[in-house]
């Protein structure tokens, strides 16, 4: 499990909106899987979580499991592995003095547990599986 946090000078609702509606602005440019560093990233209450390149090409980045605005969002995350073996991201937004404490918990799911900390096995044992998403993105 990996835990990271940051305190933002915003209300929880504003912090939640920044995370979900401005994903295109905070998602690292060199981690775009459509091949377009100026792609748009969508995280929607309906469950869709995807990236759309300026060409219109779309890549699923995961799936929204829970949308508890403004307290919490739970995502299946395909980016580091594959849709078949997602990891999971839970983000919580807690009001505190001076703003909102945002905590990101990123953890493997049972299907991705073996990929989590192993370096070579990530690609050697699950070669095609782990790279399927990347190959599609690069196509």
């Amino acid at each position, binding site marked *: 499990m990996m835990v*990271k946090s940051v305190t*933002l000078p915003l209300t929880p609702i504003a912090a939640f909106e920044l995370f979900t509606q401005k994903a295109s602005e905070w998602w690292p440019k060199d981690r775009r899987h459509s091949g377009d560093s100026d792609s748009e990233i969508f995280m929607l209450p309906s469950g869709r979580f995807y990236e759309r390149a300026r060409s219109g090409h779309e890549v699923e980045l995961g799936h929204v499991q829970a949308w508890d605005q403004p307290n919490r969002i739970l995502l299946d995350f395909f980016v580091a592995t594959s849709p078949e073996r997602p990891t999971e991201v839970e983000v919580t937004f807690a009001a505190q003095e001076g703003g909102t404490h945002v905590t990101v918990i990123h953890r493997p799911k049972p299907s991705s547990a073996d990929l989590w900390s192993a*370096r070579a096995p990530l690609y050697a044992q699950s070669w095609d599986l782990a790279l399927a998403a*990347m190959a599609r993105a690069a196509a």
Partner: protein
Amino acid sequence: MHVLDALGNPVRRAILSELRAGPLSVGEIAAGLPVSRPAVSRHLRVLEDAGLVQAREEGTRNVYSVRMHGFASVREFVDEFWDTALARIEELARR
């Protein structure tokens, strides 16, 4: 080029698959693939830049092998991802 981008190409994944069995020269790699030797050399350069393979001179030829510590685990990947993302989120929040 990032590791995952270097891997986003079927020829480069095929080269790495061949090298998993042991070190090979450019000619040996090319013999097992439906691409030209110059193309294999180009792909090897990308893989080397990404830290995934290393070259060793053996007489007059270069022998390539997989560089295991060039492979990031999922945990390392997401760790770096969120460090970058949260720094950016903080910056956006302070605007």
